[in-house]
């Protein structure tokens, strides 16, 4: 008889939520984590705070991790990855590799929580010069700066007087191949814009956008305060090129509501990069033999009412392994998959 173990691949917010939920049912859980710590992207990429409540990422994620690690039926394999998987629902056999050493694990079910990676702005068809200009950075670069408490122009270490965000970098683009909206960038950019306004006295902050996509409560939680309380300037119209000029950056685009070209000097340009399937997500789809959608994310087979079941029974996908997702989505799908996984263990399915 299988031991009914749940294996969670990936220890970010969605994986943690899945592991915690399954463990709370009394099921043994093993988390296989690529890094030497849990927490996923927010920790790995030095996020300063979480959207929309601006809580410290380290603190908030820490509060997820500590109770999980205190549970006696949860263990973590750090710096490990899954290299093969055989069997079926209720009776999987998984091989993981840790610094060249292999370990076999049985599992009744598997939760894939391998997440996303930030779009590489070097692939953008617009001329943003991410790798050319020091002062063109991406959302996560600014997160790290905000976390360090120093928002400066990387080129000279000085505080910027004018900062802009350029939305939809790497998203909603047929040429790039990412036709989807990355869902969180409008909110994250607005959140960072607020933080920049708070961090740098007198700084002017602009957000150039195609559409502001602030679904649900983010509208009044982030967008409206950013505009009304923190005086962030929203401009409808996207930047198509960034040019060096007099030691600053000239952003050029069309101001669509004015119907006129715009050329605006900036000290710091932040590219609101979207989400792509992480390397781990792509790899696990292959190793586990589960279907991906055309963008490489793992496909939920029965949406919209079952968000986590994959093409292989007994294997679930959660969080941003499924596609662009905010933290609420991640922990919601994580918890859902954790419960589904636990139910397989508890029912002894496959015996």
């Amino acid at each position, binding site marked *: 008889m299988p031991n009914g173990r749940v294996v969670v691949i990936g220890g970010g917010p969605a994986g943690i939520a899945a592991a915690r939920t399954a463990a709370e049912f009394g099921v043994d859980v093993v988390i296989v984590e690529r890094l030497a710590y849990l927490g996923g992207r927010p920790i790995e990429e030095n996020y300063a705070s979480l959207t929309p409540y601006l809580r410290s990422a380290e603190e908030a994620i820490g509060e997820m991790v500590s109770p999980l690690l205190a549970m006696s039926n949860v263990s973590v394999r750090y710096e490990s990855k899954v290299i093969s998987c055989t069997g079926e629902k209720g009776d999987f056999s998984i091989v993981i590799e840790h610094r060249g050493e292999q370990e076999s694990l049985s599992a009744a079910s598997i939760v894939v929580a391998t997440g996303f990676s930030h779009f590489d702005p070097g692939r953008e068809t617009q001329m943003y010069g991410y790798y050319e200009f020091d002062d063109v950075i991406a959302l996560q670069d600014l997160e790290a700066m905000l976390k360090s408490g120093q928002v400066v122009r990387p080129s000279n270490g000085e505080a910027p007087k004018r900062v802009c965000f350029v939305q939809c970098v790497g998203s909603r683009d047929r040429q790039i191949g990412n036709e989807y909206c990355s869902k969180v960038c409008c909110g994250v950019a607005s959140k960072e814009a607020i933080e920049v306004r708070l961090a740098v006295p007198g700084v*002017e902050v602009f957000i150039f956008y195609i559409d502001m996509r602030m679904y649900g409560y983010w509208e009044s939680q982030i967008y409206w305060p950013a505009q009304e309380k923190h005086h962030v*300037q929203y401009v409808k119209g996207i930047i198509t090129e960034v040019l060096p000029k007099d030691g600053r950056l000239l952003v050029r685009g069309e101001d669509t509501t004015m119907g006129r070209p715009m*050329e605006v000097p900036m000290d710091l340009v932040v590219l609101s990069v979207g989400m792509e399937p992480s390397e781990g997500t792509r790899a696990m789809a292959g190793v586990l033999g589960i279907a991906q959608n055309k963008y490489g994310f793992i496909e939920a087979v029965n949406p919209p009412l079952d968000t986590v079941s994959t093409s292989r029974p007994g294997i679930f996908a959660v969080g941003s392994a499924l596609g662009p997702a905010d933290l609420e989505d991640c922990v919601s799908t994580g918890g859902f998959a954790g419960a589904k996984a636990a139910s397989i263990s508890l029912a002894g399915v496959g015996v």
Partner: protein
Amino acid sequence: MPIGGRKQAPIVHELEEASVTSTLSGRAWDVSGQWNRMLESRVLTDYSYEGLGKVAALEGGESLEYCYGCGKCVPVCPVDLVSEYGPRKLHRKVQTGMDLFTSDDLWKCTTCANCLRVCPKEVNMIEIMPAVREAAVLAGSVPEELQVVFEKTFRYGNALGENPRRRHGWTKEAGVEVRVLSSDPSPVDVLFYVEDYWSYHPRGQQAARSFVRILDRAGVDFAILGAEEKTIGDSQRLAGEKGLFEALMEDVVTTLAKYEFARIVTPDPHGFNALVKEYPKRGHVFEVQHYTQLLAQVIDRIPLSREINKVVTFHDPCYLGRHNGEYDAPRTLLNAIPGLNFVEMGRCRENAYCCGGGGGGMWLDGFNSNHLSERLSERRVREAVDTGAEVLAVCCPYEVSRFEDAAKSTGNDHLEVMDIAELLELAMAPVGEEVVA
């Protein structure tokens, strides 16, 4: 006529005098007129928070920057239909470097409040405009014709610059006794606050006379202040002269304190608005009615027996309707007139078009003629004519003259513009011929 109407072409800047001088020969060329058309860059470069910040720093100016560009305000903005204007556009212009404080755009808004009605972000032009205009007035940047009205109001207590002693001159031909409180200060039910245009404008005086004759027939106890009356000056406030408005308010309440009355009744929705909304902020609380509200209350006591067999439409005054929510009283009166065929215009009640007179617009026709393809009153008259109406009924003292002028200038002389008081009086049975229904 399409709702969108004719729009004015974008303004082309042609300098009347412009020259370029060769740095080699020193020779100068005239490049005025068409030559310099292309000299203005289309590229926007002046993005800054500065302009919005200046507006937001004013009390009442906070909400301009709340605009998120949905554009719901623009289709309902009466000015945009005859020009290039609208709160959303204004927000963007300020964000891209326009100085609202010195811009001609500052004077286009009639504070009609149709934008605020639809604005999801509650960008409040009714507060923004007076705030910015006040700053502009203090800085001396105000259209001359408006400045003249401010000065007349200051000197004479009325916007027309008429002799204050002749304020109740209209009563002589009223045909009924109109008590003036300074002569007979005994307590009265209705203090009839006549305001400027019913006091002085010939067409307004006719309406005032009709009104008092109706009151007389209805047995309403009323009196006026006569020469002691000064304008309440709400439109001057909205046009930026808050100081003048407040000085007038002190004078008005001092005068009012001398007499005992149950309620104030005024034909002017602008004065009505101030008495209802602005005076209480300073602790001056009165029972106030628009004259249509009073008449609607006593309609059963008005012997309406003569038929008026005409098609009549009605223009909602912005400050009675949208600003203060009264849409029914005027309609109650019109529908009480026997034989009258009442038709609504497409835009009526909450989304009624504006006559252009509010917020100082009454005194900016010359200034605005440079910016508008036609007057708002002209557009409104066309809408009235489109209903097939023979009579355009009004209940704001600004409107009779505005719409009569507009009827002439649009070639619609057949459209009669009449105050509701005048219509009611026409429908009243001659004295002694009342028939009890």
